[in-house]
């Protein structure tokens, strides 16, 4: 006698449909936070580009610096979906040979911009990875005079391809010559700030 065997084991009901999970949220960067610490001491200037709900409605602080001072700039990346917020900066720092931060925009003159007559600040990398290549989590910022413009902070992820590193020591020059789009890797964050020097 022939009996047809249904794959009963496959019929098991699944209850996870009605309980959707927000997973992989740990990969998201919601916030780019900048801390300008005056060289002469005093209160730091803080500014953030924050989209804590990751819904495309960011709150963007303007940056106001004083022409009478110079600064050290610390860039940090946060995931504010997590509670408490996760500091992605540590992961970037741990993988510093695969990441680099670039500062560009009308307000900036630095390794990634080349000569810029309209610049109101001059940036220089203040840190380096194990290969001696800049990371950009820490920079020195010198004010160049009163004025305003935009500053773009780009975090580039530069994972190796076919086991060959793609981060080199000349990437900032490449950006100055051909823009961010001339870089290998992928953009993890790219945000614009308004910057004014008073």
């Amino acid at each position, binding site marked *: 006698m022939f009996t047809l065997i249904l794959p009963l084991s496959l019929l098991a009901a699944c209850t996870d449909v009605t309980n959707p999970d*927000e997973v992989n949220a740990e*990969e998201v960067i919601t916030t780019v936070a900048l801390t300008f610490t005056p060289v002469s001491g005093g209160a730091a200037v803080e500014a953030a580009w924050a989209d804590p709900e*990751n*819904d495309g409605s*960011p709150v963007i602080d303007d940056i106001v610096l004083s022409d009478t001072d110079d600064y050290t700039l610390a860039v940090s990346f946060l995931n504010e979906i997590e509670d408490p917020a996760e500091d992605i900066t540590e992961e970037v720092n741990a993988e510093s040979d695969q990441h680099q931060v670039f500062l560009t925009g009308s307000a900036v003159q630095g390794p990634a911009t080349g000569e810029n007559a309209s610049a109101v600040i001059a940036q220089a990398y203040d840190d380096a990875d194990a290969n001696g290549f800049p990371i950009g989590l820490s920079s020195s910022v010198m004010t160049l005079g009163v004025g305003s413009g935009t500053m773009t902070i780009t975090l580039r992820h530069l994972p190796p391809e*076919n086991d060959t590193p793609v981060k080199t020591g000349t990437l900032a020059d490449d950006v100055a010559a051909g*823009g961010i789009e001339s870089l290998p890797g992928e953009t993890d964050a790219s945000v614009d700030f308004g910057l004014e020097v008073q």
Partner: protein
Amino acid sequence: MRSLCIIAALTAFAPGALAQEPPAAQEPPAAQEPPVKVPPHLVGPVTPDYPPEALPERLTGRVTVEVHIAADGTVTDPVYVSGGPEVFIAPALDAARRLGFEHGTRNGVPVPYHLAVHFDFAPPADPASSGPSPEGNVPSKDGVPSKDITVYGYRSLATSETHAVTTIRVEDLERSGGDDLGETISNVPGVAMARGSSDSTKPIIRGQVERRLLVLFDGVRHESQKWGLDHATEIDPFAAGEIHVIKGAAGVRYGPDAIGGVVLVEPPPLRTDSGVGGKAQIAGSSNGQRVVAAARVDGSPVAVPGFAWRVEGNYARGAALSTPTYVLGNTGSEEWNAGTKLGYSRDFVQLEASYHHFDLRSGVCYCVQSGTPEEFLAQLDADAPTRSDIWTPSYEIGRPYQAVTHDVALARSVFSLSGGGKMKVTYAFQANLRQEFEQTRASITGSQYDFTLRTHSLDAAWEQAEVGLQSGGSLTGGVGVSGTFQENVYRGLPLIPNFRSFQGGVFGFERLKVGPVEIEAGARYDHLSRTAYLTPSAFERSVARDTLGEEDCEVGEDAASCPAAYDAASASLGGLWHVVPQRLEARLDLSSATRFPNADELYMNGSAPTFPVYALGDPSLGTETTWGVSPTLGLRLPWIEAEASTYLNCIDDYVYFAPELGEDGGPVVDVTIEGAFPRFAYRPIDALFYGVDGGVTLGPDAPVGLLLQGAIVRAVDTETQGALVMIPPDRVEATLKFSPPDLGPLHKAFAEVSGLYVFEQTHVDPNADLAPPPDAYFLLDAAIGAELPLGKHTLKIGLEAHNLLNARYRDYSSLLRYYADEPGRDLRLRVGLDF
């Protein structure tokens, strides 16, 4: 004597088969009501005589004949139905007259029957090249060796279809040795293939992409995340015995998704004579150094007549593909498939159960980057992707990559009913698991996009036996119901929601045959009820973007549940006119079909992983309805065969994925932390698709033959007159084939050269596309092959060259065109053994 297969005709199916004990042979089932019917039983095999005049050219072919079996079991009035070449028709009719049957009965009373019978012809000393039971020569009484006869209850689909249909036979499937479904059917006129981001493709039929196509594997609708441009169809190419490509809306018979066309992937029939046989193939490709090995074993034990089994599997591993000038970094792939099928066929019952597993791990080209629009445009202008100099043709598959599995299990019963009709019931379960892994920081493990789609389906269909009319014509038809329960679980970066859906449908069709004219009319109704479950944060994102209102969903603690229901009606009217029987036929198809919106079209909300856009669904989308007309003309003469088909499809509320334009006419931009992306939205438009496709074969059975074929598709938004994006450009193809008579021990030797010219797509809408169309291209292919009989076995050898001139080109309908060239020259050697 083996070559006799009694398949569906002498068996039949009923839903009761699952619960009911099949009765013993000759004993009618008692539970059936009204009258119990036992179809005729074939007594002793018959081999058709291979005509001597076909010997010089070693022709092969299949002829289908319809026979009338009188109440006493004798065969009268065999009528040619289809197939050829012509030289085989007379021997097939002769053989049909010699068929002997034990008469069929109705309530124990002998009654007459109609059956369709297939006869396969192959020259002497030439083992079967296809079919369920590959085997050695079968000498017939008069000493002229001949080949297997197959008796089927169904007529070949292609002969009765009112659509334009192309069938890919097993010989051609063997030649495609391991290509995926999209590549395999891309030679069909009117079909194009779209390459995704890896070593995989998707089919496009008459300009319609996969969400408007239906792929059926062994009669089961393939359910997957088919909306993704880089989500290849999860079908094992080696599991197919024949593939039918139906062009045009065929929603009545196959369901609401079939508004652009249907691809029927049919496994070869199970073995019906006792013994064990099978086939094995290995193939290697130069481009990507791909190696593939496949085997299938069929058996039927002597001890259990009517029982048959199959085990099959294959494995393929490929390194990264190369264009003529650079390597497509990280496009290595690894695929394996395994399947088994059991069948039992006795008297009026046929039972089948099968299981298939598909497993693919496929690297996504490093060149495909979800960068900002500026980065995207910059790489478009580059001659080669940046860093392509460091990419190597490695077998290693690194991030980004896709890992996909598809499992399908089915159980089917077919029962004969009184009156000669039959009932077919199929239950299938499918699980589609798709994981996509992005390049991430090292601290992050696991996949970033994880989709699980589970589908249960139950289909029941009753096919009516042919009924003679007093006026001389005859009627056939059928009705059916289908039900589907589906669950989608998505875990990952914001993209699509979970959902649960129920879909039910009912359909019926009737065919009238009067003289040389056949007319078929059908109708179908489907209902879909689907609830999407969004995370609270995803719901808020949708509300923030105005795609969902607070009142659209019931917001709970864990999820917002958003219900939706749709109805769809389909109807078709088709005609088939044998203007000059066997010579000239005309077909006309008038169809209307309605498709339900997919969950991604309604609720998508996120950055597409392989496309630099922000994609936004529209929950207010309704069904889309196509109205189509397609006349087809076929000509068959000894020296020329031709088919041409033209079509016009109006699609109301066609769901179109295109840039959203603001009130000022400029593109809408979504700002995310990764940059600003143009917003692409699904929106309903009224679309018009029209075109023509077809081909001519000069000398189809001659030693030198020439095949010419081509296709033109146009698709416009009827309101703006703008061309739709990604529609395959015009193409023409010419193939010159030499099929010499036997070369020493070699049979079926052939050599062919083929040229494909694809025009530049000039019908474009610059506002709806991210890049201008690529240039026209020309591809030259060549192939040689032959078969070598080794006793009862056959060795098959072939060498194929694709893109022999190593042309650099990009294809307008492929996602890859935005990032890199298509692969360059590929030489492929295959060796197969039928045993």
